């Protein structure tokens, strides 16, 4: 038998990038998957409860590769001990699943968490990409021109408060280097550089959102959670996308009052419900502070629909008055069990296209509500 030959070699692999290319494709697909999961992520407690500040990253499961496989936790497995294993020994345990908690590190295979993570900002960018304030109109162009200052040029002359230090030092370095004495020294007036600016005039659309929430006793924790999730994203959305949007917060039970943002998101109340109180309050605020001639106005009301029956007629009337002053009126009803609510039965007869409503039965529908209220007109 002849001796088998062997060859030892070392090629240049630097062009072999396939692994990285396919890794990138996987990450792209993870992003696509996140997009498809937006309805669930939008109501993710870890984001809402932290006000979107503390939590910076959400771990995202890498894409599963589905195939026919055995149920790991329902089958038997063989393992190996140190020599004294006994029947009944516990090898490990999986923590019981709590609400909102991820699965603990079990021995179950296939549950891959990849270190692909999305920040709230990224998530928000994906979400907001699909939203827009509907029917936004330019109000009273003359008055609402805003001016913006943009630094556009660097000059040798200017006022000292506008000195551009970095460029000045660079000029000094350049001059000294040319003179054969490198370093920063002897800054002369010739080195000084100043920023100059231009004023840009832009026509602007001002908008105000009136966020109204039912805080009566009938609003359970689920209802409040849903309403707050909606308003949480709404405020973030408006503040990210529009420069001149003001938000007025109104909480109501039998009475309505204007509250701070902090109170709006955190305070619980109790008692009965008279929705018209909120609508009246909204009208008062509009009339005293936000002239419809100057503002795009969007009132939104979230409730469980459980209103004092005798108040419904008044509600319909006030909504009519509100719509005269506003671009639209959005009503969101959190109605877990899909019962017919007193408020909705009254609102059914409103035929004005400015009236938009949305019924939310489960968490995932907050996303739909956002999309329904802040719909983007079809391009073209």
């Amino acid at each position, binding site marked *: 038998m002849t001796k088998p030959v062997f060859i030892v070699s070392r090629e240049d692999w630097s062009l072999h990038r396939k692994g990285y290319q396919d890794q990138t494709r996987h990450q792209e697909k993870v992003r696509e998957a996140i997009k498809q999961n937006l309805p669930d992520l939008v109501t993710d407690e870890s984001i809402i409860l932290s006000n979107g500040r503390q939590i910076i990253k959400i771990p995202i499961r890498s894409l599963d*590769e*589905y195939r026919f496989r055995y149920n790991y936790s329902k089958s038997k497995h063989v393992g190996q001990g140190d020599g004294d294993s006994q029947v*009944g020994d516990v090898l490990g345990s999986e923590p019981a699943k709590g609400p909102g908690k991820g699965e603990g590190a079990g021995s179950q295979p296939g549950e891959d968490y990849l270190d692909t993570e999305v920040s709230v900002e990224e998530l928000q960018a994906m979400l907001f990409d699909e939203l827009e304030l509907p029917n936004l109109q330019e109000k009273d162009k003359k008055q609402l021109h805003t001016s913006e200052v943009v630094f556009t040029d660097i000059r040798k002359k200017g006022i000292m408060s506008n000195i551009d230090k970095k460029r000045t030092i660079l000029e000094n370095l350049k001059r000294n280097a040319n003179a054969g004495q490198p370093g920063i020294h002897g800054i002369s007036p010739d080195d000084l550089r100043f920023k100059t600016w231009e004023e840009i005039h832009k026509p602007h659309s001002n908008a105000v959102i009136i966020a109204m929430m039912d805080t009566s006793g009938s609003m359970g924790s689920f209802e409040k959670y849903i309403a707050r999730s909606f308003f949480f994203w709404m405020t973030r959305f408006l503040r990210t996308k529009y420069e001149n949007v003001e938000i007025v917060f109104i909480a109501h039970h039998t009475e309505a009052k204007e509250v701070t943002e902090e109170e709006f998101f955190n305070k619980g109340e109790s008692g009965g419900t008279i929705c018209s109180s909120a609508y009246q309050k909204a009208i008062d605020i509009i009339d005293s502070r936000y002239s419809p001639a100057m503002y795009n106005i969007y009132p939104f009301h979230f409730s469980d629909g459980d209103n004092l029956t005798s108040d419904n007629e008044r509600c319909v009337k006030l909504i009519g008055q509100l719509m005269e002053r506003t671009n639209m009126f959005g009503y969101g009803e959190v109605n877990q069990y899909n019962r017919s609510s007193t408020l909705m039965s009254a609102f059914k007869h409103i035929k004005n296209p400015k009236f938009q409503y949305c019924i939310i039965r489960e968490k995932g529908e907050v996303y739909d509500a956002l999309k329904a209220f802040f719909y983007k007109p079809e391009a073209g």
Partner: protein
Amino acid sequence: MQSHEIKELERAIEEITEIAQGFGLDYYEMRYEICPSDIIYTFGAYGMPTRFSHWSFGKTFHKMKTQYDFGLSKIYELVINSNPCYAFLLDGNSLIQNKLIVAHVLAHCDFFKNNMRFSNTNRNMVESMSATAERIRQYEIEHGTEKVEQFLDAVLAIQEHVDPGLIRPYRRGERTTPDRIKSREAAAESGSEPQTGYEDLWSLERDTHSKPEPITVRKFPSQPEKDLLWFLEMHSPELEDWQRDILTMMRDEMLYFWPQMETKIMNEGWASYWHIRIMRELDLTPEETVEFSKLNSSVVQPSKSSLNPYYLGLKIFEDIEKRWDKPTQEEQERFGRRPGQGREKMFEVREFDSDTSFIRSYLTKELVEDLDLYIFEKKGTDWKITDKTWMNIRDQLVYSRVNGGFPYLVVDNGDYKRLGELYLKHSFEGMELDLKYLERTLPSVQKLWGKPVHLETIVEDKKVVFTYDGKKHHRQFI
């Protein structure tokens, strides 16, 4: 690696090769390639340096590479079953690491060359896979990356469902026409049944004119068909030519990988057994001996929640050697076993067995106790040891290795309800399927078949049929 280091490595390989040959190991020519970690991990993720591109490989690559970067795991070596046999060594391995790996790799190559399960393996797979990758690339250009990717997704989801049986080689590559296609073609030639794609309608019309012919219920397929990929390739009314082509190529790749999945424990045990024996023959310095022992124990260390195939395989092989070298009085009398045949028996086992028969025949009561094996399962939220009966342990291990560890499905009916729907059956062997995964995988089959698909299995001792019709899932107890 410096050139003098390469010289040193070459000298070591020469010595090891000689020793291995002296032990009777029989391997192909070897090509050792030294490469950086990301390349080794690419090959590891793809299973082959030249394989086609797919995001799932990218995912595996990323995971493996990350674990390596954090120092959690390390592949020192990778070996490709081909002739010549390729072994990739990680750049940065120490000389002693490389010595161990070379010894290990030679035993793998011997196993590839001599084990029965590999007898049909295409030894030019490196080139074949490269050609496949090129062809898939062309299809991407022709039909769009997205479309090809979606098709690959569907095929990869069911890629394990092939029939690697050794006695039906007609399925390998060449296309033979099974009965139904033949009879259809015959019918088409005689003009009795026009092949328009509207057969259902024609037959409706015929029924109104003439008496219905007596229905001969011919089963299709006549026998339950295990090779789902092959069946789809042959009979799916849905596929375009390029799709059929990809299906064929993917099936060939799976058939190439299959013997490795069926002999994992044996193959790793065999390689571990020999690297230890070969290293003992080398003249190692004390430092080298210590480094070798550390490395070796990290390779063959047992684990609590899963079995280390290196360790288990090694122990079984060593046990075989011992029992055939020094048979007991009883074994000598009952089986006529003569002493001193350990090695001979080992070589026989490496030739004829696969993991299931290896464990069934050679995992003894003494070994189960010696290794402290046990059965564990989930009770409530705990994973608990529930059984230490040696026969149950052995059987459980065998079950877990049946069909490469994948559920055994067959095509029971390709014309279910006479509507051309696909009816699959799971041959239930005591282990339930993951239902979430089942429902996510059925759409892939439906996509490839084009009509509703059904899968019958057992859940909580009841027969259940899962159906996906292209839009919705249904579950039905029967």
